[in-house]
């Protein structure tokens, strides 16, 4: 199978890739590789930068220009001082370079001391000193906020919500798509129009009315409140239906001849053939649910039902953001998605590509 695929792809692309005269690169080849290299750097670069930054100390984050790797300043304990002092490389007035420990900094002057000779205090303009640093990872950016809340409970809730919501979505969306794709019936166009019309409605604008409905149903502070409301996604119905339209009708007619029930046509014939599109929807559903923030924030206000996204944001107070925690928690939120990506990337891309969405 794979061979057929490459064969046909090759012929598809021959016109673009044909290197005329054999061997000599056409400008489009060079352009392609340059474009792709830049593209990869642009797609991953920011995320890598975020991850690297998340291991820096608050002081390290403030540095300008920033360093690539997380560095920590070397500290030495000096006689006569309770706490270890940070070490600097100082260019003295006479041009010599000394390694001194800083006692304190006052404006543009630093009071420094030579660890070998702790009695004498030396005043140095801050412009002429440079911290001596080593590679050091600030794990506390991660451990501190994670200690503050019940990480495992939130993780568990998020997994339950994501899994349950995705299953419900796949089931009811695929059924509806089947109904809309396979049959001609009265009201079909109306329903389709409706589906497409509501494709466009962002949850943000019906937040409060939707909350009222959920309250009336008594679902506030249960995980159902986050699982069910988003299950009937119009996007999913649209995507699956478009795919199911491409399934040959002969197959269905033949099954009917064999007295298969409509339900078994649905799950024995149409569903298996629609798997690529279903896989796409599954991936999207997982993403949506995992990343959901605004809605859970309203319907869940008890810590035992918090999802991870609420938990990760719970340390943000009235004060301004503390970047070292924000960055670390962003990385934590990123990890599951990146893992999904790493394991399923081949599958994701072929799935979406072959679902076609014509």
């Amino acid at each position, binding site marked *: 199978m794979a061979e057929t695929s490459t064969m046909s792809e090759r012929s598809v692309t021959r016109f673009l890739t044909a290197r005329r005269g054999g061997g000599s690169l056409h400008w489009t080849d060079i352009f392609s590789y340059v474009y792709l290299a830049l593209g990869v750097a642009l797609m991953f670069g920011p995320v890598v930068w975020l991850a690297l930054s998340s291991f820096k100390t608050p002081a390290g984050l403030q540095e300008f220009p920033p360093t690539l790797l997380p560095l920590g300043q070397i500290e030495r304990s000096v006689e006569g001082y309770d706490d270890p002092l940070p070490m600097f490389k100082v260019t003295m007035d006479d041009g010599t370079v000394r390694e001194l420990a800083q006692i304190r900094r006052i404006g543009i002057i630093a009071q420094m001391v030579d660890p070998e000779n702790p009695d004498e205090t030396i005043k140095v303009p801050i412009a002429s000193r440079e911290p001596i640093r080593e590679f050091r990872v600030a794990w506390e950016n991660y451990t501190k906020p994670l200690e*503050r809340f019940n990480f495992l409970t939130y993780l568990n809730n998020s997994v339950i919500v994501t899994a349950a919501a995705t299953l419900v979505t796949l089931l009811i969306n695929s059924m509806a798509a089947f109904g809309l794709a396979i049959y001609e019936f009265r009201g079909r166009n109306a329903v389709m129009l409706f589906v497409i019309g509501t494709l466009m409605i962002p949850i943000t604008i019906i937040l*409060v009315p939707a909350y009222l409905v959920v309250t009336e149903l008594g679902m506030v502070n249960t*995980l159902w409140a986050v699982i069910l409301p988003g299950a009937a996604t119009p996007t999913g119905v649209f995507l699956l239906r478009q795919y199911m339209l491409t399934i040959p009708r002969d197959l269905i007619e033949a099954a009917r001849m064999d007295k298969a029930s409509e339900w078994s046509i649905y799950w024995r014939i149409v569903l298996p053939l629609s798997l690529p599109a279903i896989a796409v929807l599954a991936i999207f559903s997982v993403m949506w649910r995992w990343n959901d923030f605004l809605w859970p924030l*309203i319907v869940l*206000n008890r810590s035992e*039902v918090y999802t991870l996204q609420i938990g990760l944001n719970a340390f943000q*107070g009235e*004060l301004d953001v503390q970047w070292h925690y924000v960055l670390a928690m962003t990385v934590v939120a990123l990890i599951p998605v990146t893992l999904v990506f790493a394991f399923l990337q081949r599958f994701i891309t072929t799935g979406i590509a072959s679902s076609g969405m014509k």
Partner: protein
Amino acid sequence: MKNRLHMTLAMGVAALGLMAGNALAETELRMTWYNDGIEGEVMRGILDKFEADNPDIKVTLDVVPYKAILESLPVQLAAGEGPDIARVTDLGGLSKYYMDLTPYISDPAYWEENFGPFLKWLRQPGDTSSISGFMTQLTVTGPYVNKTLFEQAEVEMPGEGATWDDWAKASKEVADKLDIPIPMAWDRSGHRVAGPAISMGAKMFDADGEPALVDDGLKLMATKLYDWHQDGTMAKELWGSVSGSQYLGANEDFANAKVVMYMSGSWQIPQFADTIGDAFDWWAVPAPCGPAACTGMPGGASLVALKTSKHPEEVGKLMDYLSSEEVLGEFYGKTLFIPGHLGLASKGVDFATDDPRAKHALSTFSSAVPSISPIAFDLQGYVNNRVMFNALISRLGEAIVGELTLDQAFDRMTQDVEQQIAEKKRGG
């Protein structure tokens, strides 16, 4: 095979998780809380002691992002889905959801005596007697300066009674000499501007007690802020970015010595003690003056009992415990919060810090409380004060970036306040 197992497991766990909410024996109280610093941990420690004394009551602390306190909690309360107790900052705005604790607490006189002026903030207009909660912290707005930079630049710090203009000029001078990027920064918050505006003569209310945001005093303050942004005394990064009434602070920039003078408030003390330490002398200074007064704004967060609670007796018991002088003293002391308890305020709280800067700041802000203008107290107690703050900050922000002229901004402020209050009055 493995996949199958996972699937069944996940489903089983799902079913369990969904049912877990119902299986609790003793009375459980829910307290919705947000954190600026370590106060959640301190509160948890106190609650543990309470639970040990009262084995039949369990208190769960639901820590939420501050955003949820401002945005989600009001909707939840309106739908009758709130917790038993919550830590809130929109004191007047939510007052219709507060429970009157009077029948459930042991000594209402103690509350009146020690929380008197703050109880008013929690009451609806017309109500003079209800007791709904106490202040987890009293805050006072006021500026900090980087004293070290002043010394460095050999510029003298303006002394007692100095005006905002004096401070602005001095900060600019320091910044120019030492090449500091931001001479002066104010939190992007209407509450922060209100104090100085009152100092400039703003009255905030008309003779009938109705809100009258825009008057000559406010115009004077707003014009100064506008000019400072144009001449570089203030950086546009706070007021000139983001839209509407969103809050932005300059605490990180101040902590990194990029700001000479920072207008914020007493709640920054624990954070500065932690992040700045002795890196430089961060110094709280008394509220600078205008022609009318030298005042900051009082404020703070309050722990309130809510009507939605089904266990008022237990809530009363808990609030009694938490508000006792001993427990509250411990709480304020550990969190470095200015006491919202008159007894403790006059006796003094034993703050858990050795930092001379923090001690100085705490005493500066504590001693500023008596000199706060009555207008500022009234404004803080006014139910729709955030409507006024939001109109002020969002329109002034639009003027500073040049979308509106100052005069247009003033008109819009008046309009915004009128419209929102009219909407609120419609259908009660």
